[in-house]
């Protein structure tokens, strides 16, 4: 029986390459094995057949052509292709590589703006866009309040009310000065204090006024004129003040590459976080709880104070503002399905009247006298009906 080792030795024996001892052993076996001799002859025949292939000299001109190649400086053919890919695939590979690099650079340089979901409907964006700062309607579900915002805006000119920019923070500042509130470095520092505990009424008032005055400054500094931008900046200020929950990401910076996206992001953030119906103008009326609705919401004596109050249509923003504005204890329970909540912002004030009219609800407040005791939970808060009407805020304090 012949194995591969024996055959391999036969091949080497044919070439005279076996060591002496192995050669003698194999010759002994060859002498006695016809099969082994037959195998050796077959290998020898193969070897002979290859050796008998004719040797051909180089063709005529071979050396001349070699010299010509040398003279031309022809390089030998490269051992390997420059890449494994076939030539047809190389342009696609190059394009793919460029695309990946471009995507990487783009992702690394462009500001990414998170878009809160769900996005508000276009109508809500439009309303928020045109709302004054004190009219931040951030309740996505309150369609009625949206409408009231729009109504309030429509009525501003009809009622002869002061524009928001004209009666906003600057009006508040003047009001504060008239009332002798301190607006200085101390109060500016107090504006950033945590709400609450050991502050006097004056400090709270000064802090609140400073906060909203700063909001106006920011608006002017950014030269924000369009509605959506104003709403966005207001949201940013309120977010810094803690009136609405902070975004999970840093406050975005307006990017020239995606301004519309930024506005939508800010506006939708408003819708998710806070609330407001509308406020502007001046009027006085019986409280909303009164059984006898007023025939109209005609303006009373006093000055329009659209920034003097906040109107809420949902509990979260209401509770946040309650704490921030320094109201004592827990916020009262308001049935937001049927009611809105009004908070007067300046301290040491008192709601004088709430008068529902056919087109608006007039809320009138005044400053407390030096001999009056402050009771913010009763004097500066009032529920009003959840009607699709604007809220007109008036300060009736005599100057």
């Amino acid at each position: 029986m012949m194995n591969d080792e024996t055959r391999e030795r036969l091949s080497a024996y044919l070439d005279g390459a076996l060591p002496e001892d192995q050669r003698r052993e194999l010759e002994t076996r060859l002498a006695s094995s016809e099969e082994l001799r037959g195998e050796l002859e077959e290998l020898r025949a193969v070897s002979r057949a290859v050796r008998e292939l004719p040797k051909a000299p180089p063709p005529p001109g071979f050396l001349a052509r070699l010299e010509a190649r040398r003279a031309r400086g022809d390089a030998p053919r490269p051992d390997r292709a420059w890449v494994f890919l076939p030539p047809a695939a190389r342009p696609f590979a190059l394009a793919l590589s460029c695309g990946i690099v471009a995507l990487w650079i783009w992702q690394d340089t462009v500001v990414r703006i998170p878009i809160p979901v769900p996005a508000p409907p276009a109508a809500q964006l439009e309303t928020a866009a045109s709302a004054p700062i004190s009219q931040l309607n951030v309740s996505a579900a309150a369609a009625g309040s949206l409408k009231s915002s729009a109504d309030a805006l429509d009525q501003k000119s009809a009622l002869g009310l002061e524009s928001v920019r004209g009666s906003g923070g600057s009006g508040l500042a003047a009001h504060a000065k008239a009332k002798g509130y301190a607006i200085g470095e101390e109060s500016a520092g107090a504006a950033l204090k945590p709400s609450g505990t050991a502050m006097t009424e004056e400090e709270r008032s000064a802090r609140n006024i400073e906060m909203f005055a700063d909001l106006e400054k920011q608006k002017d500094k950014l030269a924000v004129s369009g509605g959506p931008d104003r709403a966005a900046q207001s949201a940013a200020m309120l977010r810094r003040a803690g009136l609405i929950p902070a975004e999970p990401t840093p406050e975005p910076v307006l990017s020239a590459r995606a301004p519309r996206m930024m506005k939508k992001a800010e506006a939708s953030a408003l819708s998710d976080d806070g609330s407001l119906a509308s406020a502007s103008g001046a009027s006085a009326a019986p409280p909303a709880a009164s059984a006898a609705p007023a025939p109209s919401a005609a303006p009373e004596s006093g000055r329009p104070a659209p920034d003097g109050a906040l109107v809420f249509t949902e509990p979260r923003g209401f509770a946040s503002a309650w704490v921030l504005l320094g109201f004592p204890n827990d916020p009262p329970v308001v049935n937001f399905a049927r009611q809105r909540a009004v908070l007067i912002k300046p301290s040491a004030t008192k709601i004088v009247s709430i008068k529902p009219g056919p087109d608006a609800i007039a809320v009138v407040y005044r400053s407390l006298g030096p001999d009056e005791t402050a009771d913010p939970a009763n004097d500066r808060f009032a529920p009003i009906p959840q009607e699709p009407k604007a809220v007109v805020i008036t300060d009736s304090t005599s100057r």
Partner: protein
Amino acid sequence: MTEKELIDQTAGLVYNLALRLTGNRADAEDLAQDALLRGLRALPDFRGDSLPSTWIYRITVNAWKNRVRAEKRRAFWRTVTFGFSSGGEDDEPIEPPASDPPLDAELEKTESGAAVQKALLELDADDRAIVVLREIEEKSYEEIGEVLGLAQGTVKSRLFRARAKLKSLLQKAAA
């Protein structure tokens, strides 16, 4: 060794080796000239550790094996790209498919010679190189080991396997 001495002593050997490796005159001349150009370029670094013929054989066999590998890559991509080709220089075939090698009719005048050459071309590159070096160029195991970079024991076993395949191919052709 000078350049002239290298060409005078090895050009014929290199061409003959290339002819048996490639199986046709055109590719043989291209391969032989390529190998000689490489040899001339590397001559200043040749230290005489081996015979000049062994050294230039190694260059020739390596150049040829690189061509075979490149051709296999191209054949693979021609298959996977369904024949789509850019028509570039890389697409030029170096070696015809082993299943149908074009035999040089002038070279193989006898029927048996053509069959042997065809069987040789059906061996893979390593087997063909080792058979040609041993049977045609009559190199020793030691020299074959130097040319191919193999140990003598490996040369012995590979040569046996190559002969066995060749025998099988020739028997199949005869049947």
